[in-house]
């Protein structure tokens, strides 16, 4: 399969058509979706109509944009007007949003062809896509294993070459961890770089939309399109989208790379070996290595599993059976709310809503939520100090390769530990990227590069160094 950049270039100069690319993508979906359950909703007619529109633009001599004719998969928590958008939940079964997310509008303005909505853990709560009401997604590299999560469908769509690009959301690792487990590139941008308007909210101070791709350049291409200020998101950074492609081959010569002990401790041997190899590669490319310790990272998991559920308990209060989605009838409103939420939410969502409600409740607020917010301050300060000594950081993305179905479903805490290396970045608001690097048998391993806020250009350049070495 061609890269997104190649498809866009070929469509723009008429060497291929958007329609042919859309048909190729839809055929790939049809061939394996029943087995892998990657897409939960596919609108073939709309995708083909959209592709024809792009081709008409080309034939009129217009430029459809940098994603001309590129099929893109959308995580099912991104609103696309008129298309089923269910966030992996029964409570939104059959819901079609009356508006589109800013990221959806931006990829359309850039010529992309949305193919469908990808499976996810319900409301993005999970690390394996096993929490979807629509059934689990299977890892394309080994269908007996999970693809990671919560954006497991988007990662698998790219890994299975159904689409060259996908969008996901990352609240505690939900782009990077599935990217690592599926062997693709996944990026969690700086908080505020990408508008969250039209993203079904999970934890608003942590959520960020980002790209999946089969290579670093394609990920940069998609991020350039979706980034930049949006007046419809009050947390949106004021500046325009950064330039990422221009410097993507700038390398890392003279850069200081911090190896962070806490961002790999406890990881499996194969994962540690991959990080070690990445360190050697960056060093050969001229980077200086610095050994660093950020002990605050060890507190990240606890802080995250108080802050994110607290915010979720508030965000998910809107699902009450009144304005949209499921309603279970009852004699009065309160009973209707309760019956609707009880049937509409799955176990993990209930767990987190209750955890958040508890952490925010009188008598426990200071001990749990209040403490977690203070730990967040310490985390931000600790990363700031680390970035005085290093330009970027290197660690593992996930502690292990893809695990088997059911392995962690009965023990929520074990599942939460899948995100132990990705969570600190979300708490700090910083960007990070997971790059496939090494394998354990058939199963891919990802290494993680982290940087201070707005350092995406450097992260992509470093990721590109790893990618070039890997393919040489």
């Amino acid at each position: 399969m061609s890269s997104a950049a190649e498809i866009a270039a070929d469509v723009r100069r008429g060497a291929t058509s958007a329609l042919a690319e859309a048909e190729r993508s839809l055929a790939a979906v049809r061939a394996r979706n029943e087995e892998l359950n990657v897409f939960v909703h596919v609108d073939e007619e709309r995708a083909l109509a959209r592709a024809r529109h792009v081709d008409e633009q080309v034939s009129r001599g217009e430029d459809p944009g940098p994603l001309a004719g590129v099929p893109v998969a959308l995580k099912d928590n991104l609103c696309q007007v008129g298309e089923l958008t269910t966030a992996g939940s029964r409570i939104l079964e059959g819901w079609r949003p009356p508006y589109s997310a800013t990221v959806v509008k931006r990829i359309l303005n850039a010529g992309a062809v949305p193919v469908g909505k990808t499976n996810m853990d319900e409301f993005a709560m999970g690390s394996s896509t096993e929490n979807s009401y629509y059934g689990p997604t299977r890892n394309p590299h080994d269908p007996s294993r999970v693809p990671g999560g919560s954006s497991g469908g988007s990662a698998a769509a790219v890994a299975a070459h159904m689409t060259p690009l996908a969008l996901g959301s990352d609240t505690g690792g939900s782009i990077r961890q599935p990217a690592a487990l599926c062997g693709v590139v996944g990026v969690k941008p700086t908080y505020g770089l990408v508008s969250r308007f039209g993203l079904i909210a999970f934890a608003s101070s942590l959520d960020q939309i980002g790209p999946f791709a089969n290579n670093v350049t394609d990920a940069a291409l998609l991020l350039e399109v979706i980034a930049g200020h949006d007046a419809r998101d009050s947390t949106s950074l004021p500046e325009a989208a950064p330039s990422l492609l221009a410097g993507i081959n700038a390398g890392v010569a003279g850069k200081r790379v911090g190896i962070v002990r806490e961002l790999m401790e406890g990881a499996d041997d194969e994962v540690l070996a991959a990080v070690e190899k990445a360190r050697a590669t960056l060093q050969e490319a001229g980077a200086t290595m610095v050994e660093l310790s950020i002990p605050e990272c060890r507190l990240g998991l606890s802080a995250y599993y108080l802050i994110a559920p607290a915010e979720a308990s508030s965000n998910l209060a809107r699902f009450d059976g009144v304005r949209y989605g499921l309603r279970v009838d009852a004699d009065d409103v309160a009973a209707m709310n309760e019956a609707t939420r009880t049937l509409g939410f799955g176990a993990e969502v209930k767990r987190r809503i209750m955890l958040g409600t508890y952490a925010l409740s009188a008598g426990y607020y200071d001990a749990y939520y209040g403490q977690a917010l203070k730990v967040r301050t310490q985390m931000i300060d600790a990363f700031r100090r680390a970035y005085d000594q290093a330009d970027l950081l290197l660690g593992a993305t996930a502690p292990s390769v893809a695990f088997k179905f059911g392995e962690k479903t009965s023990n929520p805490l074990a599942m939460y530990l899948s995100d132990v290396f990705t969570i600190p970045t979300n708490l700090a608001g910083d960007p990070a990227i997971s790059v496939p690097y090494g394998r354990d048998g058939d199963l891919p391993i990802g290494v993680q590069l982290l940087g201070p806020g707005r350092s995406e250009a450097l992260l992509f350049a470093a990721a590109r160094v790893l990618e070039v070495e890997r393919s040489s």
Partner: protein
Amino acid sequence: MASPLRREDVAKVAKLARLSLSDDELDMFTEQLGQILEHANDIAALQLNDVVPTAHPFGLLNVVREDVIEASLPREELLAMAPDAEDGRFAVPRIMGEAP
């Protein structure tokens, strides 16, 4: 510092969150939430009196837009996705006792 989670605590938060749980679910969630909170004791036990809490990574500024009237989404489209609508409004079951 934090008290161990009891079954009645879980029943209380479930009620606050408008969720009803079966007896089996109450047992399961009490155990699971208890384990998570036990893990969270590593931060509940920290002495952080001098640390300022952070609710948002870059600090939130109040964002206001120009006070200009813009088109809203069409009411009919929104009501069409509602579970129940009547006379241009969302319809819900009664919220108080029967009328006298």
